[in-house]
Structure formats: structure tokens, C-alpha cells
């Protein structure tokens, strides 16, 4: 690099922020190089970049890397991200996942780590929270496996579930990542038919703590008519999950919500905590939105989608979808939803092969609905989950 003397009329002020001047003549003779651009302005420019571009910018040169890695820059950046989490679609069949970044309105490809589950049907549970996702399934040898990973760094931890957890049962998984300590908890609620018993299920709640790296079976209870299904969430130290009382008449299954205090402080009689869902025969989706439990459920098969938040032991309806968003869900319809922090994503389909052409979002803060024609959800087999990208979290 040759230094050149400055032309007289370009009176560039010097300040301590700038590294030594480096004028490199471009082919057209103009003096243009970003090397001399001051740090604070460079920071402003980099702050406008989407997440993926920011990571690439980190290898451009030492100076850019230093700016991007600085504490102040990261805080400024992730402040915007945490309110509007990414939405990821994944089929777990070897294809890459695609992730939607709502802040910059872009889709990017995300290669999740290859889980050891060869068949989609062997995935029994899935959960995601700040920065981490958790998958529970059956490996090829039929052994239950739990995997917690950070999808961005692809650092994975495999955890063997508690020995008493078998493969043929109903299970639901939830994960809660602490915001204060680098730890997380994974809950696994299972229902199985106890041997020798004709009627009823044995429900168990297992909890894994990343600090102790141990499983604990918090409780086991026999229930004559109820069993767990696929929805659970941990909010503010309380595990909430839906239970179902399957009925012989089709579609007349009854659903309800129960809760379990994970700190074990209160006496936990599950059925005493029972709260019916707003539509007793409807199946909803549970999610943790800033430590409040939110339920997304179709209002009735023909009328759209509603969002409720749990206040104590009662549901409070906070929103209904606009009329044209989910028209006539129909008898084969399915509804999926996920949410984190301020944003809820909802998508649906009419039967197995007819997904809707868009994904609807609801912003809890601004009470605003919107639709994104950005991707077609291939089918209900695709897992969609919300995810707050965090580079620092390690499973």
C-alpha cells in the first residue's frame, strides 16, 4: 500500500478514531477506500444490516470485526431483534430450513444440525425458546434421545431422557431459557397406559436442569380420563399444558389446561388447577409471550382465529383475526401457531395438502395483524417455530 499526499483542497480532519490514512487509487483515479471511514459512522452503517450479512461482515477485516463484536453494538442490534423473532420452517427430512427475519423482511436458508432421527414420525416433541431449540425423538435404535441446540452456531447437546420414559406414549416438550443465568430447563410431560390397567393413563412430569445436568421426575399421577397432548409451555416458572379427554364420538374430544409450579412451592394437584379452554372442543396452541401464557385457537371451525391470554385462572380474549384471514377452516382444517416476545405467527390449511398461501402475524404490542405472502407452508408436517437468534447461548 503506497501512501499518497493529500490534495490541498481535501481538508480531511484527523481524529483518534481513524486508523492511518490509506488512499488507494481506484481504476478511475478517484480516492475511495473505507479504511479511513471513522468507527462511529461505520457502526451506524453496520447496524442497518440484516443478521446474516452482519456475520459475513465480521470477516471483512479486523476493524469491522472489532466493531461488530463490541458489547455496545451487539446490545443495540439485538434490541430490535428480540421484539420481532425469526420464524423458521423445517421439515426435518434432510432439507434445509428457511428462516424469516421480520425486521429486514428477508428469508434465508438455515441449515439445522442433522438430528439423529431418520424419520419425521419419530419426532415426539419439539420446543423452542430464546436462542435454543429442543427436539425429542426416537433414534434409529429405538432409543429416546433429546437434543438441545443453538441453530445458528449449530452447537448441539444430546441428552438422554430419564430412563422411565418409553417410546410409545404421548409426550410434550417445553424449554425455558433463563434470561439471567446461562441455564435452561426442559420439561417433558408424558402419558402412558400403565401395565395391567384397562382404563386411564399415567401422567408424569419430568424436568431437566442444565445446571445440574440431571433429570428429575416431579410427579406421577394416574388420571382416569385425561392424558397430555402436544401443547405445553413454561411461563414464569410454571409449566402449563393441555390435556385431552378423548371421546368415542369423533371430534368431541374435550380439552383443558392444567398447570404445575416447577419450583414445587405450591401443592400441585393437577386437576385442581384445571382451566377449561375457551372452546372446550377446540385444540389450541400454547406459547410463552414475555412470560404470559397465550393461547391461539380457532373460534369455531368457520369463523377465524382468536388469541387469548391467561390471567390467573381466566382467559382474556385479546384479538380476533380479520374476517378474510382464515375463511372457513373446514372439517379437515389444521391450524399451527408459534410466538415469542411480541410476535405471533399463524398459518393454517384446509386438509392435508392444501396449506394457505400466506403466514399471518399478530404484533402483541401494536395490536396489529398482517399477512406475508412470502412463503407457502408446504404442509402441516412442517414444523414452524419462533426463535430469537442469539449467538452467545450454548446448550
Amino acid at each position, binding site marked *: 500500500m503506497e501512501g499518497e499526499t493529500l490534495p490541498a483542497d481535501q481538508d480531511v480532519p484527523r481524529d483518534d478514531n481513524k486508523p492511518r490514512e490509506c488512499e488507494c487509487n481506484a481504476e478511475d483515479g478517484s480516492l475511495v477506500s473505507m*479504511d479511513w471511514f471513522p468507527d462511529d459512522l461505520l457502526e451506524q452503517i453496520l447496524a442497518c444490516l440484516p443478521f446474516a450479512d452482519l456475520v459475513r461482515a465480521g470477516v471483512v477485516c479486523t476493524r469491522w*470485526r472489532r466493531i461488530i463484536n463490541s458489547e455496545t453494538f451487539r446490545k443495540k442490534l439485538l434490541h430490535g431483534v428480540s421484539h420481532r423473532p425469526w420464524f423458521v420452517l423445517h421439515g426435518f427430512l434432510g432439507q434445509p430450513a428457511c428462516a424469516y427475519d421480520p425486521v429486514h423482511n428477508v428469508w434465508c436458508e438455515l441449515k439445522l444440525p442433522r438430528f439423529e432421527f431418520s424419520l419425521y414420525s419419530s419426532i415426539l416433541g419439539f420446543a423452542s425458546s430464546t436462542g435454543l431449540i429442543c427436539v425429542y425423538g426416537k433414534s434409529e435404535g429405538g432409543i429416546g434421545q433429546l437434543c438441545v441446540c443453538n441453530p445458528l452456531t449449530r452447537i448441539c447437546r444430546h441428552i438422554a431422557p430419564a430412563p422411565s420414559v418409553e417410546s410409545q406414549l404421548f409426550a410434550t416438550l417445553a424449554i425455558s431459557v433463563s434470561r439471567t443465568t446461562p441455564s435452561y430447563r426442559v420439561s417433558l410431560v408424558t402419558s402412558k397406559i400403565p401395565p395391567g390397567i384397562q382404563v386411564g393413563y399415567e401422567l408424569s412430569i419430568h424436568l431437566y436442569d442444565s445446571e445440574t445436568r440431571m433429570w428429575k421426575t416431579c410427579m406421577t399421577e394416574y388420571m382416569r380420563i385425561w392424558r397430555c397432548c402436544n401443547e405445553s409451555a413454561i411461563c414464569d416458572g410454571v409449566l402449563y399444558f393441555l390435556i385431552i379427554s378423548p371421546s368415542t364420538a369423533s371430534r368431541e374430544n374435550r380439552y383443558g389446561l392444567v398447570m404445575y409450579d416447577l419450583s414445587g412451592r405450591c401443592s400441585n394437584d393437577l386437576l385442581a388447577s384445571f382451566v377449561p379452554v375457551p372452546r372446550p372442543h377446540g385444540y389450541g396452541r400454547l406459547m410463552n409471550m414475555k412470560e404470559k401464557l397465550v393461547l391461539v385457537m380457532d373460534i369455531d371451525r368457520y369463523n377465524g382465529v382468536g388469541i387469548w391470554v391467561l390471567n390467573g385462572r381466566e382467559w382474556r380474549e385479546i384479538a380476533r383475526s380479520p374476517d378474510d384471514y382464515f375463511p372457513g377452516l373446514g372439517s379437515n382444517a389444521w391450524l399451527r401457531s408459534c410466538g415469542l416476545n411480541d410476535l405471533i405467527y399463524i398459518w393454517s390449511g384446509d386438509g392435508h395438502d392444501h396449506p394457505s398461501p400466506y403466514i399471518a402475524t399478530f404484533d402483541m404490542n401494536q395490536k396489529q395483524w398482517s399477512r406475508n405472502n412470502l412463503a407457502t407452508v408446504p404442509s402441516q408436517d412442517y414444523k414452524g417455530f419462533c426463535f430469537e437468534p442469539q449467538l452467545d447461548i450454548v446448550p
Partner: protein
Amino acid sequence: MSSPPSASASSSPPPCPKKMITLRSSDGATFEIEETAALQSKTLENMIHENCASTLIPVPNITGEVLARVVEFCSKHAEAGVDDESLGAWDEEFVAVDHTTLFDYIRAANFLEIPTLLDLGCQTVADMIKGKTPDEIKKTFKITTACTPEEEEEVRGENQWAFE
């Protein structure tokens, strides 16, 4: 003997005199700007309030060429009755310049504290960076320093997803 003009003699009231500020660039060129437009710049706003008597403000950090364009920007953005869409189109044309000029705008906007111009400039550069590989970025912006191989390996290793 002329009589003083009376209000009833003229058909429309005389236009309000707009207060003009004069800016002097580093190379001695002067530019006039309406006070309302100058208030887009926080730096100028402070200077105007401090030097209420004088209307000549030296801007030693910015050349005449750049200052002329900055004055144009502020005047346009202070105009009444311009809809968002046409202003957006005007902005787009404003920043369709070579890199040196763009960086000059950003530095000028930073010194004069003009948030609209600063955001526009930074976003424009960010848009040039989006989607490029690190090598392409280095080439576009003539960046000659580089990460050490160890640093590069560290970032790529942790974040392969961004490089595929």
C-alpha cells in the same frame, strides 16, 4: 411627493421575508439557505441560536461541492406539501452517486447532525453491503486491511450458516 403604500392599494400582502443564513465552506464558497431548512441540522440550529446577530456561519469541515448538495437536501426536506413517495424518489436519486461522494454526505450529515441525511446515507451503504460475500465487500469498498487467518477461521467456524 410619494405617499407611503397603504394596505388597500396592493392586491395581495407582500410575502413574508424569509430569514436566510449564509454558510461558508472550507474552500471559501458561500451558500444561502433558508433558516427553516437549516434547522434540519442540529449543529446549525445551535449555532443560529448562539449567533443571533450574525447570519454567516463557517463550516470548515465541508467542501463547497458537498455543502451545496447538503443545502439542496435540507431545502428539499423542509419544503411543505411534498408527499412521502416523491420525497423517497428524490432521496433515491440524491444518493445515486459514487462512493466518495456518498461517504462525504455521511460525514457531512454526521458533523452537521442531520439525522435524515445520516440515516439515508448509512442505509444506502448498508444496501450495498447486503448479500455480498466478504471478498466482494472488500473489493467494492477497497478495504485493504484484512482479518488474520485465525480470526477468519473463528468466525467462519462458528457461523457456517451465514457463509453457505
